[in-house]
């Protein structure tokens, strides 16, 4: 008898299993519900009812398009892309801008600000006013906010961000660099010590 513990199936395996038996789709929902809920909240979908609607739409789209999943991508990148598109189209439909509600992510923010990445132009004090950073994030251009959220709050690699936002990897670096400068500009304008 083989005593080695059986590893749970990978996302990609679950996709294949779902295409055979749709009940496995529930496992994918379990894996991604909370992650995507947090992600769309960061993108501006804050109301719990709206979050549920958007999540439902994300998973339904995922299910309908399972055969279009490119196995050379990571499943997480693919589902994040769907989530990103749904969140963006949700707030576009309502013609609203996302508001800064990242207070709960202060740990993420502290971690982000302590990274050396792209730090030449932006020097942060670690005494972080997370609320202000959240508000400042909501003020900067969408394209910068989206990469900053993916990089520093969702902890995605450049290549994953490239796959999620469908932009070249080189552009990811540029956007992060400019996004941090832009964010620093907003924070300095408000004379907030972060």
């Amino acid at each position, binding site marked *: 008898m083989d005593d080695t513990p059986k590893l749970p199936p990978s996302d990609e395996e679950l996709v294949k299993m779902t295409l055979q038996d749709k009940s496995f789709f529930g496992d994918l*929902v379990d894996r991604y*519900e909370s992650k995507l809920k947090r992600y769309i909240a960061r993108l501006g979908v804050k109301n719990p009812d709206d979050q549920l609607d958007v999540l439902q739409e994300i998973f339904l789209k995922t299910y309908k*398009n399972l055969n279009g999943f490119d196995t050379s991508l990571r499943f997480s990148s693919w589902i994040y892309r769907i989530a990103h598109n749904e969140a963006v189209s949700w707030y576009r439909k309502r013609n609203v801008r996302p508001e800064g509600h990242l207070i709960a992510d202060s740990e993420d923010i502290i971690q982000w600000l302590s990274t050396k990445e792209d730090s030449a132009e932006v020097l942060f004090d670690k005494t972080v006013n997370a609320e202000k950073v959240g508000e400042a994030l909501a003020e900067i251009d969408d394209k910068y906010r989206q990469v900053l959220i993916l990089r520093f709050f969702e902890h995605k690699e450049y290549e994953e961000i490239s796959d999620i936002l469908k*932009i*070249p990897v080189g552009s990811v670096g540029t956007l992060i660099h400019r996004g941090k400068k832009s964010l620093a500009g907003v924070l300095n304008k408000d004379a907030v010590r972060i």
Partner: protein
Amino acid sequence: MNSDNETLRKKLLEQIDDQAINPKPKVVFRCRECAVWSLWLLSVVVGGMAVAVSLFVIIHHQYDFYEATHENLLTALVDSLPYLWIIIFGLMVLVAIYNIRHTKKGYRYPVWFVLSSSIVLSFALGSSLQYFGLGHTVDKILGQNMAMYMSQEKLESRLWQVPSEGRMIGRQIFTTVSPTSTIVFQDYRGVRWTIDVSELKSEELDLLLEQEKVKLIGRPTDPTLRNFHACGVFPWMMDKPMKLSELSAEREEFVDRMLEHAEAGRKLVAMKETREQTASSSRKKICYQIAPVKKMPTEG
């Protein structure tokens, strides 16, 4: 697992069951990908054709006779540039970029890479097509079948069938009773002219004798009586794709002829000054006065 999670999982699976939702078949995605790549290929091919026709137009040296047809080289270039094809080429490059960006992994390539590769590919294809004479063929077919399309042949005809400005296209019909220095020439519009060929060289007379379509440079001496004094005859080159060497030779021939007339004019003036001229020589020599001869650079 929290209750929300249970709710969402359950709700979604129920919805999938109730509404009989199924994943879209693979073929849908394959067809979409195929359509995107096909559109890309089409845009590159059309872009290549645009390059082929543009190259044909540029290589054809419409501006080679600019001293005869235009004020200067710049106006000749402005008049002969293939704007339509340049616009089509630009549009096709944009379509190619759009399509590449919408393939599964097209977004991974930077815009400059997609842009330059589309341009390079279209140029490579266009150059190959032009090499095999497709630029000329496409231009000719479009010109014959689309009234609105200004093919090189139409443009050249428009430029050259202006007798009042000393340019005509047509062919010799017959010579007048020998010995004579006139021929009967039928122009592009079917009008018959009596042409004084006294200042033409024997090669030019031979060219006329072939009764092929030619371009004539000169001056109308009596437009009412349809009298025209010829100063140069050049072959009509729109019937087949021409080689660069042939086009260059045509330009050289034109410049040489105009310079010869200029030289003859200088000699005539010198003879007038020394009163050596005969009545007949001064009466017949008028080519040195036509506009293209005056535009030729003078020696020294």
